């Protein structure tokens, strides 16, 4: 990236003096032209639809025919819907268990942050779940859990227990899916923390070691504070991803058995596509959107602050 450094220097010096002469005449036309197409598309496909969804949630609509205004009727119905509370509870379980990802990711990153000849390959293998489609991970784990054919069943039989049917058990099903999803999420956090570890202030750590710090105090008081921005980002992104999960539920259980593994994202899809209730679906989406907005706002605030600090 430093290709411009040498030859450009003289031109840069001339330009600098020229700019001082010219004074800052703001050019508005160029950015407007540059932004027209990307921004137009973004407004058409992202911003517009968000606003329209909020609006649709106030109607009773099957998705194709004519819509009837019901005001907050969909929300009133939603808050009395037992399935909504199942989804909400599952969302909470997803969120809490997903918080294991930053913890495990950090532990794994510390373990893997060594220089060995084979480390590049080892790390690549640990990153692998990250590039696999959630659908594929879902398929792999469905097979993993299969009570007749799966590896888990083989392990259980080997130690003399009856194999559990995890994905058709109302109590275990959500946990089964979360384990599969965590696999990729831990890999994501691992990538972030490995990058964080590589940017630690080596001199500070060496000085602390000279002063006799090691083990937990070294980690707690010297290393962790330096990793704080990464911990923050990894945690917030993990929370956001925990609320977005749809693919694995769709592929592994379709929300079953008896709707016991749905989350808001899946319930919304189910209501809209299978029950032809677009208005009701939009209301569920709005609730999910409201919940996630909190975390999106936290992430945004962090990004913009970082931005301001660098200016």
């Amino acid at each position: 990236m430093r290709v411009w450094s040498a030859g450009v220097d003289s031109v840069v010096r001339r330009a600098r003096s020229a700019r001082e002469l010219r004074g800052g005449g703001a050019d508005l036309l160029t950015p407007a032209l540059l932004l027209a197409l990307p921004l137009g598309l973004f407004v058409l496909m992202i911003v517009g639809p968000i606003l329209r969804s909020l609006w649709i949630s106030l109607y009773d609509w099957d998705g194709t025919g004519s819509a009837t205004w019901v005001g907050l009727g969909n929300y009133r119905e939603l808050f009395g819907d037992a399935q909504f509370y199942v989804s909400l509870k599952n969302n909470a379980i997803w969120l809490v268990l997903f918080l294991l990802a930053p913890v495990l990711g950090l532990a794994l990153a510390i373990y893997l942050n060594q220089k060995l000849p084979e480390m590049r390959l080892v790390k690549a293998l640990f990153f692998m779940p990250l590039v696999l489609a959630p659908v594929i991970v879902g398929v792999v784990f469905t097979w993993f859990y299969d009570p007749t054919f799966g590896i888990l069943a083989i392990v259980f039989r080997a130690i003399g227990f009856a194999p559990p049917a995890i994905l058709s058990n109302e109590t275990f099903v959500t946990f089964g899916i979360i384990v599969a999803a965590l696999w990729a999420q831990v890999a994501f956090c691992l990538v972030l923390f490995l990058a964080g570890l590589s940017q630690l202030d080596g001199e500070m750590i060496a000085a602390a070691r000279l002063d006799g710090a090691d083990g937990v105090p070294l980690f707690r008081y010297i290393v962790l504070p330096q990793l704080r921005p990464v911990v923050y980002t990894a945690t917030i992104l993990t929370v956001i991803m925990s609320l977005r999960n749809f693919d694995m539920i769709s592929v592994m259980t379709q929300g079953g058995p008896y709707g016991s593994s749905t989350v808001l994202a899946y319930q919304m899809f189910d209501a809209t596509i299978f029950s032809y209730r677009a208005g009701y679906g939009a209301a569920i989406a709005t609730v999910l959107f409201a919940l996630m907005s909190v975390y999106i706002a936290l992430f945004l605030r962090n990004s913009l602050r970082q931005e301001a600090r660098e200016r």
Partner: protein
Amino acid sequence: MYPTPIQFAPAPAQAAYRAGLYVALVVWMAPLFAILMTTVRSQTDLLAGNYWGLPTVFSLGANVREVFASSPMGLFFVNSLIVTCCTVAGVLILSTMAAVALAKYRFPGRTFLFAMFIAGNFVPYQILMIPVRDLVLRMGAYDTVWALILFHTAFQTGFATLFMRNFIVGLPDELFEAARLEGASELQILTKIVVPLVRPALAGLSVLLFTFVWNDYFWALVLVQSDAAKPLTLGLAGLKGEWLTAWNLISTGAVLAALPPVALFFLMQKHFVAGLTVGAVKG
């Protein structure tokens, strides 16, 4: 360096570290390993309960042939390729334009637009689903690859703009001033100066975008119905229902679908990792 390099530890500790490393790796890769083992087995072996022993016949070739012969996997593959490549190309162009505007020109509302592109990245798909589906239906693009290309291009432009802006903001302002002084038009600045300088960033971004779009399932489910437009992820989910317990075929299909992003990842690991950490790990 943290933690202390293992090379400073006594030999037995080093050996223990390595052993632990490989045990962790085997546990981590167990699901993948299992699925790879299944791709070389025949249906007969699986029915006989031979999951871990040597396969009686090495059936990888037969399984691959069977997958392509008994399902439209070939077609799905082509669809995925078209959707992914068109999207990546479109996003690279649009996001570079938007990123230059946000990084190098001052205008009112700049920070707001930047924030909007970041936030757009994280919204739940469900809040977009009904209106986007409706829009695509009314445009007559429903159930075509164009529906997917259009949506993915719009959605990924948010992330890509954030990504490219972080690179372009680092280019010295003097470069732009100098070019203007030499009489270059704004378009020439973009194509002759910015693009060549951010080529490494564009490479990293392409890998990430390829993975995101290739692995999408939700939008395929919402915007596409027939085999003629289905990408691999959606096709594979359907075949899982059709093949039921033919796990050798399902595994082979899954491995084939995973191959392009995995191959790309191994070829461009450094770019991929650098891309993912943009914005997350700074100062």
